[in-house]
């Protein structure tokens, strides 16, 4: 089956499409923006996950936002008490800072690298704390799907070896935030420790 686009919305505004296409070039010429842009920018098409945002209605999605929108993709895990909630909080604060109009065009897709422990209910509960119901709770279809996304975007993760059924193990992960535009390009990546102001400046620059 064909993956659905993230955040199905029927209205496609031509103006938004044009704005979106102009994004990448504006980015590369803006050295003051936080984070880095790769050259060439990787494309995220073909990377699919299951979005568990709506209980009992999981939906296969890709990582491409609707026209005129940005997607902040983060690979993390729920048993992470410091790095992951800090990043989610920083992005949530940035969405507050830019105001509702821009926030509505900026969504977070949280991909768990620890599907053994991070089920749909817990993912929803965790993300709704930061983003109300405005997020994507992504669980990889299988290990290969996660590996494919990690390869494409440069994500690294490592689950400590553990006995089956043992719920106590460490997870290492690269904690970057990947910013994807409406053409499905990874236009920017921000390192762990980027501030709410960094995220807010990026949103304003990318969504004029």
């Amino acid at each position: 089956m064909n993956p659905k686009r993230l955040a199905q919305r029927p209205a496609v505004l031509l103006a938004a499409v044009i704005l979106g296409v102009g994004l990448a070039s504006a980015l590369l010429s803006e050295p003051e923006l936080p984070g880095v842009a790769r050259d060439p920018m990787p494309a995220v098409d073909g990377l699919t996950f299951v979005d568990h945002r709506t209980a009992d209605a999981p939906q296969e999605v890709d990582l491409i936002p609707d026209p005129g929108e940005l997607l902040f993709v983060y690979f993390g895990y729920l048993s992470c008490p410091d790095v992951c909630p800090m990043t989610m909080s920083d992005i949530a604060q940035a969405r507050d800072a830019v105001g509702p109009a821009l926030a509505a065009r900026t969504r977070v897709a949280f991909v768990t690298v620890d599907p053994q422990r991070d089920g749909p209910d817990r993912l929803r509960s965790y993300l709704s704390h930061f983003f109300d119901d405005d997020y994507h709770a992504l669980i990889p279809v299988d290990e290969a799907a996660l590996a494919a996304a990690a390869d494409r975007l440069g994500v690294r993760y490592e689950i400590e070896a553990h006995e089956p059924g043992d719920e106590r193990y460490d997870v290492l992960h690269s904690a970057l935030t990947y910013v994807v535009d409406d053409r499905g390009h990874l236009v920017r990546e921000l390192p762990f420790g980027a501030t709410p102001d960094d995220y807010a400046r990026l949103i304003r620059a990318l969504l004029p």
Partner: protein
Amino acid sequence: MQRYRFVASAVAVGLLLPACSGADGPDLTVEGAAAVVQQPEAAETDEEAAILVHHARSRMSPSRAGVAAVYLDLENPTATDDVLVAASVPEGFAGRVEVHETYEVDDDSMAGDGHMSSDGNGHMSDDTGMHGGSDSDAPAMMGMREVPGIPVPAGSTVELVPGGYHIMLMDLAEDLVTGEEFTLTLELEHAGAVTVSVEVRDHADV
């Protein structure tokens, strides 16, 4: 270049902040280690081996994550270096409490330490669920580990902040709910036990 917050953990060494130590605020003195001090501002053991604890706070823990991090400032106004070596919470509150640091994994030091290394192609190499090679431009991985202690040098304030040191609560019996408080006892090498009240805060206020 941009300013990033992940610098190191102990930031404010050398900062003496009398304003925060009870000079203006309520001067809360605890007799012995068992008493619980209602923060907001300061907790203190006794005149001799005083370590002042400020802003003891925890991020609420959503969705039965079972874990939470406590952050606080440790002020050592004495002339004796001290070390935070352990912490505890009342029985039944959490299964384990450890002094932790968030750190960046040094790939060079990973070989042979029990972690799997990459097959060079970034693919799963065994059942550890390892992914991603360590090519030169690959991002570092972040992890968390127990530390033997957090030094609090004489006359300094050490801040436990997100991205640096934290006190890690594991196997929490219940989610931590914003607005609640709980008791945390810190063990310092010289000052001994210091018990404070930790405020559970919303994510944006940590």
